[in-house]
């Protein structure tokens, strides 16, 4: 009797909270803290990392500009059902990603997504990058520059190719804000002062950064035939 009652009660609770989560960053912030997310992620900018040791001491990626980096639809879904983004375990080169990221129940996922989307960076100019099939960007990503050496992407016939040390960019166009991709390539130190990815500022022209950003932002699931 009792478990049924609590189950019924919690369903009612879930339904009411789920329907009342129209953008409530404050509730999301509370849930973020209550669930211990802050043990592994910091949410106050600017970037804190100064040395390799600082970067390696982190237990999860920084989230202080999450609202500029991610797409909201993706974020809400991922928090409720996280799938590995990095092929390798965070900050470890010798172990696979265990795929054990904490999960949030639907209502919490929505409010935490609202909270994270409220964390933005002024260094991401909006409306610059239009995702587009881009042969020049493809050329840079696969041939001219080593991007594909460290990042997975869906190549011909949807075959996953590429390296494994960087976050997978398969379907990156669904996950990442196209404008953030460009801002990160142009000005990487603002977001990630110490990282395993080389700085390309000054090595790729502004035009080529735009081409490769548009190309990556266009990585989306192919429609099933």
């Amino acid at each position, binding site marked *: 009797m009792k478990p049924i009652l609590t189950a019924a009660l919690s369903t009612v609770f879930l339904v009411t909270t789920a329907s009342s989560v129209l953008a409530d960053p404050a509730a999301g912030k509370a849930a973020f803290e209550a669930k211990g997310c802050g043990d592994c992620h910091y949410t106050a900018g600017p970037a804190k990392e100064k040395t*390799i*040791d600082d*970067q*390696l001491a982190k237990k999860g990626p920084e989230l202080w500009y999450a609202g500029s980096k991610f797409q909201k639809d993706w974020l809400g879904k991922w928090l409720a059902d996280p799938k590995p983004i990095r*092929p*390798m375990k965070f900050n470890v*080169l*010798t172990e696979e990603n265990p795929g054990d990221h904490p999960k949030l129940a639907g209502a919490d996922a929505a409010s935490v997504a609202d909270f994270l989307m409220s964390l933005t960076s002024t260094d991401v100019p909006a409306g610059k990058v239009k995702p587009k099939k881009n042969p020049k960007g493809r050329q840079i990503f696969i*041939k*001219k*520059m*080593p991007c594909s*050496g*460290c990042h997975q992407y869906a190549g011909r016939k949807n075959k996953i*190719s*590429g*390296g*494994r*040390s960087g976050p997978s960019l398969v379907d990156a166009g669904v996950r990442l804000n196209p404008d953030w991709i460009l801002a990160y390539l142009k000005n990487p130190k603002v977001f990630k002062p110490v990282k*395993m990815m*080389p*700085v*390309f*500022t*000054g*090595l790729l022209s502004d035009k080529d950064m735009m081409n490769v950003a548009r190309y990556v932002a266009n990585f989306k699931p192919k429609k099933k035939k």
Partner: protein
Amino acid sequence: MKNLMIIAAVAALASQLAMAPVGAAETEKVFKFYCAQCHGLTGKGDGPNVTKDFPVSPRNFTNAKEMNKLSDADLKNVIMDGGPSVSKSPMMPPWGKTLNAEEVDGLIKHLRVLCKCKGKQG
């Protein structure tokens, strides 16, 4: 008087330490952070990026025969400007905008420790 001399000596030593090039431990950290993803933690060319799709094998730094073909200046060029600068694969990235001069010099010494070789002279 004697004390003063000791203080002077200690001060000189301290300033020398401060100017010393990046130490071996620090360099190993730099290598493991940036280079091991392709070249492997022990430099054998077997980092996690090297799957069967990887188009070229990253140099095995423990191969003294191959590494002896390269001078320290060759190493510096390829580390700073990437594979294409020495007619090698673009899969070897340019690190000139990422690493400072001391870090690059430290890495060259580290590669010579890994290959147990001196490299092409002159």
